C-alpha cells in the first residue's frame, strides 16, 4: 500500500471486478490478490451496503472479462486446436490461417470448405513438400543471400523449398521481429514467394529471447484483430479486456471496464472512465476544451480572493467549502456564493440558469451567453479534476500520519482502511461528477434533466461533505465517531453515484436524452472482420 496507484486499484477491483461473470479459475485467483477487504466482518456498515448495491446488478455496468498474457495465449491455442481438428491441418498451418482470417474461425472454416486451394494460397500456404523442416548440411550448397558456400554450412528451407543458410534466415527474422515488429505475416525471404513463416520453422530458428518477442507480437495481433478485445491502456499492464459492446452501440452505452491491474477505462475509446458521458460526447468535449485552452488557465489558479474581505485564499484540499482565515466568511469555491445556502433546497451551484431570451437578442449577446454557459460547465468539470488531485494529496498526507498513529495507538492496518476506502470513493465519484458536467453541457433540456441535475447535486454534496472530513486534524480522524461517520459517508457517496449512473445509463439506452451534438461517431465503420489483403 505504498503507492497511490495501488489503492486506486483496490477500489476498482473491490467495487466492480467481482460483478464480472468470469468463469475462468485462473482469473478469479488473480482477482483475489486485489480483494483486500473480502475478509472484513460483515457488520461493517460501509462494506455491507456496498455489497447490497453489488447484488442488484446495476444497469450502467457492462459485462467484460480480463485476460492476462497467458490467457491470450491459451485462447489462441484453443482456436488453433479446434481448426486443427475440424480441418485436419497441421497446427502451425491452422495458426497461419486463423491469423489470415483475423481469428474469424467460422469464416475460415466456411471459406476453406468452399475452396481449400484458393484459401491456402491466399494465406501464404501454397503447395508444399510434406517433409518437416529441419536444419541440414547439403553438399555443394550456396546461400543466395550471403553467397557463402563453405563446407558444412548449415542450411534451412521452409515448406516452399527455398533454402538459405541458417545464419541468413536468423538475421532476416531478427530484422523483421526486432526492427520491424512483424510477426504474423513474415514471408519467405525469397523475392515473390508469399509463403508465411510457420511456428515450427520459427522454433527451429529462433533464439529464446527472440521467440519471446515473437510471441508477444503475435499476441498483439490477436488482440488487435479482434473487435471484442482491447489492450488495457495502463502503461505497464499487459492484460487485455474482452467486451461485447459494438462500436455502433456507443451512443447507447458507456462501456467502462475494470482491468485486474486496477485501471478503469472505457472499452469504446480506451480513455479513462468517463461515465455517464458517451464516447462521442467525450471526444467533442475534449476537443472543445483543447480549442478553448485559455479558459483552462482560469481554473488552474489555486488562489482566489475572499468575496467578503478580499484577502487571498489558497485551496489546498479538494473540498469546495472555503473558510476565510481572516474574516471567517464561508463560501463556495466554485460559485463564490454563500456556503450556508448550499445545504438548502435553493442550492443550484451545479445548474446553469439560462437567462431569458429577451436580453440575448443580438449576436454578441448570444455569444456571450454561450461562453458563460460553456464556462459554467467547464469550470465545474475542471474543478472536479483538480479537486480529485488535491483530495489525493490530502489523503497521502493523512496516510503518513495514519502510519504514525497506527504505531502510537496500536490500531491495526485493517482498522485504518476506512480512510483508504473513503479516498478511493472520492476519486471515483469526482471522476463521475467531472463528466456529468461535460454531459450536461451538451444535454438539451427536457422533463428528465431536472432529475439528472438533482442527482448531480446530491452526489456533489455528498462528495464535498466527505472531502471536508479529510481536512480534519489527525487526532480527530482517529476518533471512533468520525470513523463511523466517514464510513457512512463513503457508502452514501457510492450509493449516490450508482443512482446517478443508473438513471443516466437507463435514459441513454432508451434514447430519452437529446443532445446538441450527434453521438453517432463517423468513425464507426463496418469493422475489420475480413481476411487481410
Amino acid at each position, binding site marked *: 500500500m505504498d503507492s497511490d496507484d495501488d489503492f486506486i486499484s483496490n477500489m476498482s477491483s473491490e467495487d466492480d471486478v467481482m460483478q464480472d461473470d468470469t468463469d475462468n479459475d485462473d482469473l478469479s485467483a488473480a482477482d483475489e490478490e486485489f480483494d483486500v477487504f473480502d475478509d472484513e466482518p460483515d457488520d461493517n456498515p460501509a462494506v455491507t451496503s456496498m455489497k447490497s448495491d453489488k447484488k442488484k446488478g446495476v444497469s450502467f455496468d457492462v459485462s467484460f472479462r480480463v485476460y492476462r498474457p497467458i490467457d491470450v495465449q491459451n485462447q489462441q491455442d484453443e482456436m488453433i486446436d479446434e481448426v486443427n481438428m475440424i480441418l485436419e491441418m497441421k497446427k502451425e498451418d491452422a495458426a497461419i490461417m486463423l491469423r489470415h482470417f483475423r481469428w474469424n474461425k467460422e469464416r475460415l472454416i466456411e471459406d476453406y470448405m468452399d475452396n481449400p486451394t484458393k484459401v491456402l494460397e491466399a494465406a501464404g500456404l501454397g503447395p508444399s513438400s510434406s517433409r518437416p523442416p529441419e536444419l541440414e548440411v547439403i553438399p555443394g550448397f550456396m546461400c*543466395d*543471400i*550471403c*553467397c*557463402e558456400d563453405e563446407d558444412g554450412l548449415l542450411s534451412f528451407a521452409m515448406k516452399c523449398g*527455398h533454402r*538459405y543458410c541458417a*545464419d*541468413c534466415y536468423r*538475421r*532476416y527474422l531478427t*530484422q523483421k521481429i526486432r526492427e*520491424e515488429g512483424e510477426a504474423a505475416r513474415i*514471408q*519467405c*525471404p*525469397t*523475392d*515473390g*514467394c508469399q509463403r508465411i513463416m510457420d511456428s515450427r520453422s520459427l522454433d527451429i530458428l529462433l533464439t529464446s529471447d527472440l521467440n519471446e518477442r515473437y510471441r508477444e507480437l503475435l499476441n498483439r495481433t490477436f488482440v488487435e484483430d479482434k473487435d471484442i478485445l482491447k489492450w488495457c491502456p495502463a502503461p505497464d499492464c499487459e492484460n487485455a479486456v474482452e467486451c461485447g459492446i459494438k462500436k455502433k452501440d456507443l451512443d447507447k452505452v458507456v462501456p467502462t471496464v475494470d482491468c485486474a491491474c486496477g485501471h478503469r477505462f472505457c472499452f469504446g475509446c480506451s480513455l479513462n472512465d468517463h461515465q455517464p458521458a458517451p464516447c462521442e460526447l467525450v471526444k467533442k468535449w475534449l476537443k472543445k476544451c483543447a480549442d478553448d485552452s485559455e479558459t483552462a488557465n482560469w481554473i488552474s489558479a489555486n488562489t482566489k480572493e475572499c468575496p467578503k474581505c478580499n484577502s487571498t485564499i489558497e485551496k489546498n484540499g479538494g473540498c469546495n467549502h472555503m473558510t476565510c482565515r481572516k474574516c471567517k466568511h464561508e463560501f463556495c469555491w466554485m460559485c463564490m456564493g454563500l456556503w450556508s445556502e448550499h445545504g438548502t433546497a435553493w442550492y443550484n451551484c451545479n445548474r446553469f440558469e439560462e437567462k431569458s431570451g429577451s436580453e440575448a437578442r443580438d449576436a454578441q449577446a448570444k455569444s456571450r451567453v454561450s461562453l458563460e454557459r460553456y464556462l459554467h460547465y467547464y469550470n465545474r468539470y475542471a474543478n472536479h479534476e483538480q479537486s480529485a488531485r488535491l483530495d489525493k494529496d490530502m489523503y497521502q498526507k493523512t496516510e503518513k500520519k495514519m502510519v504514525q498513529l497506527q504505531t502510537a495507538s496500536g490500531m491495526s492496518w485493517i482498522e485504518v482502511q476506512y480512510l483508504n476506502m473513503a479516498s478511493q470513493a472520492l476519486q471515483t465519484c469526482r471522476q463521475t461528477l467531472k463528466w456529468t458536467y461535460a454531459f450536461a453541457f451538451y444535454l438539451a433540456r427536457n422533463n428528465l434533466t431536472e432529475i439528472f441535475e438533482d442527482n448531480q447535486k446530491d452526489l456533489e454534496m455528498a462528495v464535498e461533505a466527505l472531502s471536508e472530513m479529510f481536512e480534519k486534524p489527525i487526532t480527530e480522524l482517529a476518533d471512533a465517531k468520525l470513523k463511523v461517520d466517514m464510513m457512512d459517508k463513503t457508502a452514501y457517496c457510492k450509493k449516490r453515484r450508482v443512482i446517478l449512473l443508473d438513471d443516466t445509463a437507463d435514459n441513454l439506452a432508451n434514447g430519452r436524452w437529446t443532445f446538441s451534438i450527434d453521438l453517432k461517431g463517423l468513425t464507426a465503420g463496418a469493422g475489420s472482420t475480413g481476411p487481410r489483403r
Partner: protein
Amino acid sequence: MSSAQKRISKEFQECTTSPPPGMTITLPSETDLHKWSIQLTGPPNTPYANGVFNLTLSLPTEYPFKAPAVNFATRIWHPNVTNDATGNICLSVLKPENWKPASRVKGVLEAVRQLLVEPNPDDPLEARIADEFRTDRAEFDKNARSYVAQYAKAGK
C-alpha cells in the same frame, strides 16, 4: 559484414558483365562497394528517350536485410520521382514490407527503368505531375521532353 561484401561484389560483377538494358554501372570509389553510380539511357518510345540520367545507389550496412536506396541525380519530370535535387524514387520493391533479402539490385534497377516506361500515377511523389500525366498526356510528354533537353542531354 564480410558476408555482405561477398554478396555485394558478386552482384556488382553480375551487374557490370550483364547490365540491365541501357545501363552502365560503375563504382565512384574503388574502396567503397556500398555506393554505385548508374548511367541510364531513357528507354525508346518514351518522352525520356535518348536522355542520359545519372542515378546513385547506396547499399545500407544491413544489406541485403535492408533495401538499397536509389536516387536520380539528374532532374526528371516524372510522377514518381521528386522534382528536386534529391531525386527520391517511389518504388514498391524498396519498401520494407516488400523487400526480401533474396531480392537483387539488378531487379531494382530494372524496376527503375520500367518506371520510365510506365509511370505509376496512382502512387505519386509529385501529385501535380501525376495529375498532368493522367489528364493531359501531351502536356506531360512536352514537359518531360523539355526536362530531358535541359538536364539530361547526352554528353552533358
